[in-house]
Protein backbone atom coordinates (compact mmCIF):
# COMPACT_ATOMS: atom_id res chain seq x y z
CA UNK A 1 0.00 0.00 0.00
CA UNK A 2 1.44 3.33 -1.11
CA UNK A 3 0.45 6.68 0.50
CA UNK A 4 -1.51 7.51 -2.69
CA UNK A 5 -3.65 4.40 -2.19
CA UNK A 6 -4.46 5.41 1.40
CA UNK A 7 -5.51 8.83 0.04
CA UNK A 8 -7.82 7.11 -2.47
CA UNK A 9 -9.47 5.16 0.39
CA UNK A 10 -9.81 8.36 2.46
CA UNK A 11 -11.28 10.05 -0.64
CA UNK A 12 -13.95 7.31 -0.92
CA UNK A 13 -15.07 7.94 2.66
CA UNK A 14 -14.87 11.75 2.49
CA UNK A 15 -16.36 12.32 -1.01
CA UNK A 16 -19.23 9.88 -0.36
CA UNK A 17 -20.06 11.48 2.99
CA UNK A 18 -19.86 15.07 1.69
CA UNK A 19 -21.86 14.16 -1.46
CA UNK A 20 -24.65 12.49 0.53
CA UNK A 21 -24.81 15.38 3.01
CA UNK A 22 -25.06 17.94 0.17
CA UNK A 23 -27.81 15.91 -1.58
CA UNK A 24 -29.79 15.59 1.66
CA UNK A 25 -29.42 19.32 2.35
CA UNK A 26 -30.42 20.20 -1.23
CA UNK A 27 -33.46 17.91 -1.27
CA UNK A 28 -34.67 19.39 2.02
CA UNK A 29 -34.74 22.87 0.52
CA UNK A 30 -36.17 21.49 -2.75
CA UNK A 31 -39.12 19.84 -0.98
CA UNK A 32 -40.99 16.54 -1.32
CA UNK A 33 -41.80 15.16 -4.77
CA UNK A 34 -45.15 13.38 -5.27
CA UNK A 35 -45.05 10.13 -7.35
CA UNK A 36 -47.41 11.73 -9.90
CA UNK A 37 -44.83 14.50 -10.53
CA UNK A 38 -41.79 12.25 -10.72
CA UNK A 39 -40.23 14.19 -13.64
CA UNK A 40 -40.12 17.24 -11.39
CA UNK A 41 -37.10 15.44 -9.80
CA UNK A 42 -34.95 16.40 -12.81
CA UNK A 43 -35.21 20.09 -11.94
CA UNK A 44 -33.69 19.24 -8.51
CA UNK A 45 -30.33 19.15 -10.36
CA UNK A 46 -30.55 22.93 -10.68
CA UNK A 47 -30.42 23.28 -6.89
CA UNK A 48 -26.82 24.37 -6.05
CA UNK A 49 -26.47 21.88 -3.17
CA UNK A 50 -27.72 18.97 -5.34
CA UNK A 51 -25.44 20.08 -8.21
CA UNK A 52 -22.38 20.19 -5.94
CA UNK A 53 -23.46 16.91 -4.30
CA UNK A 54 -23.49 15.16 -7.70
CA UNK A 55 -19.93 16.42 -8.33
CA UNK A 56 -18.75 14.92 -5.05
CA UNK A 57 -20.56 11.63 -5.79
CA UNK A 58 -18.81 11.48 -9.20
CA UNK A 59 -15.48 11.94 -7.37
CA UNK A 60 -16.57 9.19 -4.96
CA UNK A 61 -17.36 6.83 -7.88
CA UNK A 62 -13.96 7.50 -9.52
CA UNK A 63 -12.11 6.81 -6.26
CA UNK A 64 -14.26 3.71 -5.58
CA UNK A 65 -13.62 2.21 -9.04
CA UNK A 66 -9.91 3.06 -8.78
CA UNK A 67 -9.65 1.28 -5.40
CA UNK A 68 -11.53 -1.77 -6.73
CA UNK A 69 -8.94 -2.01 -9.52
CA UNK A 70 -6.16 -2.82 -7.02
CA UNK A 71 -7.94 -4.04 -3.86
CA UNK A 72 -10.56 -6.60 -2.81
CA UNK A 73 -14.21 -5.64 -2.41
CA UNK A 74 -14.06 -6.82 1.23
CA UNK A 75 -11.10 -4.44 1.73
CA UNK A 76 -12.67 -1.37 0.07
CA UNK A 77 -16.19 -1.62 1.56
CA UNK A 78 -15.22 -0.91 5.19
CA UNK A 79 -13.56 2.27 3.89
CA UNK A 80 -16.93 3.40 2.50
CA UNK A 81 -18.48 2.77 5.94
CA UNK A 82 -15.91 5.16 7.42
CA UNK A 83 -17.95 7.87 5.67
CA UNK A 84 -20.67 7.42 8.32
CA UNK A 85 -18.07 8.25 10.97
CA UNK A 86 -17.06 11.39 9.00
CA UNK A 87 -20.69 12.56 8.85
CA UNK A 88 -21.17 11.98 12.60
CA UNK A 89 -17.95 13.84 13.46
CA UNK A 90 -18.83 16.76 11.14
CA UNK A 91 -22.27 16.90 12.85
CA UNK A 92 -20.63 16.86 16.31
CA UNK A 93 -17.78 19.32 15.85
CA UNK A 94 -19.03 21.70 13.13
CA UNK A 95 -22.80 21.63 13.59
CA UNK A 96 -22.57 21.05 17.37
CA UNK A 97 -25.19 18.28 17.27
CA UNK A 98 -25.52 15.89 20.19
CA UNK A 99 -24.24 12.32 19.64
CA UNK A 100 -25.79 9.68 21.91
CA UNK A 101 -23.61 7.01 23.64
CA UNK A 102 -25.14 4.35 21.31
CA UNK A 103 -23.90 6.32 18.29
CA UNK A 104 -20.42 6.73 19.82
CA UNK A 105 -20.40 2.93 20.21
CA UNK A 106 -21.30 2.67 16.50
CA UNK A 107 -18.35 4.97 15.64
CA UNK A 108 -15.99 2.81 17.74
CA UNK A 109 -17.22 -0.42 16.08
CA UNK A 110 -16.82 0.94 12.52
CA UNK A 111 -13.36 2.34 13.30
CA UNK A 112 -12.30 -1.00 14.83
CA UNK A 113 -13.67 -2.88 11.78
CA UNK A 114 -11.80 -0.60 9.37
CA UNK A 115 -8.65 -1.04 11.49
CA UNK A 116 -8.92 -4.86 11.30
CA UNK A 117 -9.09 -4.82 7.49
CA UNK A 118 -6.48 -2.10 6.98
CA UNK A 119 -3.97 -4.18 8.97
CA UNK A 120 -4.18 -7.04 6.44
CA UNK A 121 -3.27 -7.35 2.76
CA UNK A 122 -5.44 -5.39 0.30
CA UNK A 123 -5.44 -8.15 -2.31
CA UNK A 124 -6.24 -11.79 -1.53
CA UNK A 125 -7.90 -13.61 -4.41
CA UNK A 126 -5.93 -16.27 -6.25
CA UNK A 127 -7.09 -14.84 -9.57
CA UNK A 128 -5.61 -11.44 -8.81
CA UNK A 129 -2.33 -12.81 -7.49
CA UNK A 130 -1.78 -14.65 -10.75
CA UNK A 131 -2.56 -11.46 -12.68
CA UNK A 132 -0.01 -9.66 -10.55
CA UNK A 133 2.63 -12.23 -11.42
CA UNK A 134 2.03 -11.87 -15.16
CA UNK A 135 1.47 -8.16 -15.76
CA UNK A 136 0.16 -6.90 -19.07
CA UNK A 137 2.75 -5.81 -21.59
CA UNK A 138 2.68 -2.32 -23.06
CA UNK A 139 0.47 -3.56 -25.89
CA UNK A 140 -2.05 -4.88 -23.38
CA UNK A 141 -1.35 -8.54 -24.21
CA UNK A 142 -0.65 -11.04 -21.45
CA UNK A 143 2.72 -12.73 -22.14
Amino acid at each position, binding site marked *: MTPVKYFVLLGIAAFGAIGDTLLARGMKTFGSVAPSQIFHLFSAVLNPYVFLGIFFLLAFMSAY*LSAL*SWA*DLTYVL*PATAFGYVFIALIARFFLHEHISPIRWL*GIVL*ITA*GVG*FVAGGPELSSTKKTSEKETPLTTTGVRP
Partner: protein
Amino acid sequence: MNNFYAWLGVFLIVVTSTTGDCLLARAMKQVGDLGALRKQSGLGQTILRVLRTPSLMLGIAFMALSFFSLLFALSWGDVSMVGPASASLTFVANAFAAKLFLQEKVDRRRWTAAVFVAAGVFLLAG
Protein backbone atom coordinates in the same frame (compact mmCIF):
# COMPACT_ATOMS: atom_id res chain seq x y z
CA MET B 1 -48.73 -5.50 5.23
CA ASN B 2 -46.77 -2.24 5.28
CA ASN B 3 -44.09 -3.97 7.31
CA PHE B 4 -43.92 -6.86 4.82
CA TYR B 5 -43.42 -4.49 1.87
CA ALA B 6 -40.78 -2.50 3.78
CA TRP B 7 -38.77 -5.69 4.49
CA LEU B 8 -39.31 -6.86 0.91
CA GLY B 9 -37.80 -3.52 -0.13
CA VAL B 10 -34.82 -4.04 2.23
CA PHE B 11 -34.30 -7.54 0.76
CA LEU B 12 -34.35 -6.11 -2.78
CA ILE B 13 -31.84 -3.37 -1.80
CA VAL B 14 -29.44 -5.93 -0.29
CA VAL B 15 -29.65 -8.28 -3.32
CA THR B 16 -29.34 -5.57 -5.98
CA SER B 17 -26.58 -3.56 -4.30
CA THR B 18 -24.53 -6.69 -3.50
CA THR B 19 -24.87 -7.84 -7.13
CA GLY B 20 -23.92 -4.35 -8.32
CA ASP B 21 -20.85 -4.16 -6.04
CA CYS B 22 -19.63 -7.60 -7.14
CA LEU B 23 -20.07 -6.73 -10.83
CA LEU B 24 -18.17 -3.43 -10.36
CA ALA B 25 -15.38 -5.23 -8.49
CA ARG B 26 -15.16 -7.91 -11.20
CA ALA B 27 -15.12 -5.26 -13.96
CA MET B 28 -12.32 -3.31 -12.30
CA LYS B 29 -10.23 -6.46 -11.79
CA GLN B 30 -10.63 -7.17 -15.52
CA VAL B 31 -9.45 -3.65 -16.37
CA GLY B 32 -6.47 -3.89 -13.99
CA ASP B 33 -4.69 -1.33 -11.79
CA LEU B 34 -5.96 2.07 -12.97
CA GLY B 35 -2.84 3.90 -11.75
CA ALA B 36 -0.53 1.69 -13.79
CA LEU B 37 -2.87 1.83 -16.79
CA ARG B 38 -3.00 5.63 -16.71
CA LYS B 39 0.80 5.85 -16.67
CA GLN B 40 0.94 3.39 -19.56
CA SER B 41 -1.74 4.69 -21.93
CA GLY B 42 -2.97 8.06 -20.61
CA LEU B 43 -6.13 9.20 -18.83
CA GLY B 44 -8.41 9.25 -21.90
CA GLN B 45 -7.60 5.66 -22.89
CA THR B 46 -8.02 4.52 -19.28
CA ILE B 47 -11.51 6.08 -19.00
CA LEU B 48 -12.48 4.57 -22.38
CA ARG B 49 -11.28 1.14 -21.29
CA VAL B 50 -13.27 1.35 -18.03
CA LEU B 51 -16.44 2.47 -19.82
CA ARG B 52 -16.10 -0.33 -22.41
CA THR B 53 -16.16 -3.08 -19.77
CA PRO B 54 -19.59 -4.77 -20.04
CA SER B 55 -19.86 -5.88 -16.38
CA LEU B 56 -19.28 -2.27 -15.28
CA MET B 57 -22.41 -1.11 -17.14
CA LEU B 58 -24.35 -4.08 -15.71
CA GLY B 59 -23.06 -3.19 -12.23
CA ILE B 60 -24.21 0.42 -12.62
CA ALA B 61 -27.64 -0.85 -13.82
CA PHE B 62 -27.92 -2.93 -10.61
CA MET B 63 -26.91 0.12 -8.54
CA ALA B 64 -29.78 2.02 -10.20
CA LEU B 65 -32.17 -0.87 -9.36
CA SER B 66 -30.90 -0.69 -5.78
CA PHE B 67 -31.67 3.05 -5.69
CA PHE B 68 -35.26 2.44 -6.86
CA SER B 69 -35.62 -0.41 -4.32
CA LEU B 70 -34.57 2.11 -1.66
CA LEU B 71 -37.26 4.54 -2.84
CA PHE B 72 -39.80 1.64 -2.77
CA ALA B 73 -38.75 0.59 0.76
CA LEU B 74 -38.84 4.18 2.00
CA SER B 75 -42.38 4.60 0.70
CA TRP B 76 -43.53 1.72 2.97
CA GLY B 77 -41.19 1.89 5.99
CA ASP B 78 -39.47 4.47 8.18
CA VAL B 79 -36.03 5.72 7.16
CA SER B 80 -34.79 4.81 10.68
CA MET B 81 -35.51 1.13 9.93
CA VAL B 82 -34.85 0.92 6.17
CA GLY B 83 -31.51 2.84 6.21
CA PRO B 84 -29.57 0.96 8.91
CA ALA B 85 -31.13 -2.45 8.11
CA SER B 86 -30.27 -2.33 4.40
CA ALA B 87 -26.79 -0.80 4.90
CA SER B 88 -25.67 -3.25 7.59
CA LEU B 89 -27.13 -6.36 5.89
CA THR B 90 -25.43 -5.32 2.62
CA PHE B 91 -21.99 -5.39 4.34
CA VAL B 92 -22.48 -8.98 5.51
CA ALA B 93 -24.05 -10.09 2.19
CA ASN B 94 -21.08 -8.56 0.34
CA ALA B 95 -18.59 -10.58 2.41
CA PHE B 96 -20.44 -13.81 1.46
CA ALA B 97 -20.76 -12.78 -2.20
CA ALA B 98 -17.07 -11.74 -2.47
CA LYS B 99 -16.03 -15.16 -1.15
CA LEU B 100 -18.46 -17.07 -3.41
CA PHE B 101 -18.33 -15.13 -6.67
CA LEU B 102 -15.05 -13.16 -6.60
CA GLN B 103 -12.96 -15.90 -4.94
CA GLU B 104 -11.70 -13.42 -2.34
CA LYS B 105 -10.06 -15.04 0.68
CA VAL B 106 -12.35 -13.72 3.40
CA ASP B 107 -10.32 -14.70 6.46
CA ARG B 108 -11.24 -14.31 10.14
CA ARG B 109 -9.90 -10.74 10.13
CA ARG B 110 -12.27 -9.72 7.29
CA TRP B 111 -15.30 -11.55 8.73
CA THR B 112 -14.75 -9.75 12.04
CA ALA B 113 -14.44 -6.44 10.20
CA ALA B 114 -17.67 -7.09 8.20
CA VAL B 115 -19.62 -7.89 11.38
CA PHE B 116 -18.11 -4.93 13.33
CA VAL B 117 -18.82 -2.48 10.49
CA ALA B 118 -22.37 -3.86 10.01
CA ALA B 119 -23.10 -3.53 13.75
CA GLY B 120 -21.50 -0.06 13.86
CA VAL B 121 -23.51 1.21 10.86
CA PHE B 122 -26.69 -0.16 12.45
CA LEU B 123 -26.03 1.68 15.72
CA LEU B 124 -24.86 4.90 14.06
CA ALA B 125 -27.63 5.18 11.47
CA GLY B 126 -30.41 3.90 13.76
